[in-house]
């Protein structure tokens, strides 16, 4: 005779000892009168006894050492700047670029100046004449701004985006 799902549930609760005293008596009465339930209880008991001998498994002796080694290697490989500090550094560089652009735009560096080396050096120390060097403030500022922009891109890539994506990969791997 096949037993019902409700009876199956009752038997499992009986094995787990989660029934009240009254329920337990009722189930024992049912078992007493049903060979099918007796047989099923015997199967479940056999399974329960075997599963109770389930033991904890232990990893290899190198387990902890291996994790600590990986953590150490990762921290050595990391950039010395934290993500927050990298963002501050990037903001600082961009601020310099911004201020420089504003100053160039407002015409502060529009003038030129020249250095005439002949005035100071010729005849005094060296007999030959030197060419006059003309300096354009705007050109110099533009070069500084371009160099700062390149630095900003490198910082953004190496110190901000790469560590950020690496962290995300580690979290979602």
């Amino acid at each position: 005779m096949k037993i019902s799902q409700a009876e199956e549930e009752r038997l499992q609760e009986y094995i787990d000892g989660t029934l009240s005293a009254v329920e337990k008596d009722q189930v024992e009465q049912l078992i007493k009168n049903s060979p099918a339930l007796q047989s099923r209880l015997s199967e479940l008991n056999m399974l329960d006894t075997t599963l109770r001998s389930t033991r904890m498994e232990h990893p290899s002796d190198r387990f902890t050492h291996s994790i600590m080694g990986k953590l150490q290697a990762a921290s050595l490989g990391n950039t010395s700047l934290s993500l927050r500090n990298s963002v501050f550094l990037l903001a600082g560089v961009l601020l310099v670029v911004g201020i420089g652009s504003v100053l160039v735009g407002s015409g502060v560096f529009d003038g030129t100046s020249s250095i005439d080396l002949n005035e100071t050096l010729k005849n005094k120390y060296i007999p030959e004449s030197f060419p006059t060097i003309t300096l354009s403030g705007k050109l110099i500022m533009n070069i500084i701004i371009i160099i700062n922009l390149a630095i900003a891109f490198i910082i953004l890539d190496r110190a901000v985006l790469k560590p950020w994506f690496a962290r995300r990969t580690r979290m979602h791997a």
Partner: protein
Amino acid sequence: MTNEFLLIDRIIAGEQQLYAELINRYKSYAFTIALKILQNRPEAEETAQDAFIKAYHALDKFNRESKFSTWLYRIVFNTAISYKRKHKAIFQSLDNVVIGHAQEGENRLEHDDRKRFIEQGMSKLNDADRLAVNLFYLQEFSLEEIGAITGMQANTVKVRVHRARQKLADELKNILQKEALTL
């Protein structure tokens, strides 16, 4: 638990070497959870190690509302499940397991044989059912804790344990009947 939280605070503050203490405390359970899901020791070891590394990097996000162990085992569970999904193709197919039954079923069913057959029956269960019944029988976790690790309600865990046990009992019964025929 306060001591454990102090230990975690020190690790977050930079004393990385103290993490070894947490690993030693929980490695066996973490490894057992991974092994019950993956059923392969080297893969379980690798996965459990990855989970510990992930937990280390996320230590500052541990909100301390649950036990550290429950939080850690949840990471182990998720890591093992996603590892299994990624490497699904190389896992042993269930058909092979069934063939294994028939070929090995020559001996009497002693305790060790029963254990082996139950292990084979376990491989037919889905991951959540298998883990639920395994954690339940490690007798370390309450139904609520098993729920917290696997992301299920305690009542769902109970249902899964019952369902898994029912399937395993049926499996064992079938094997016993086959054994009886061969005697």
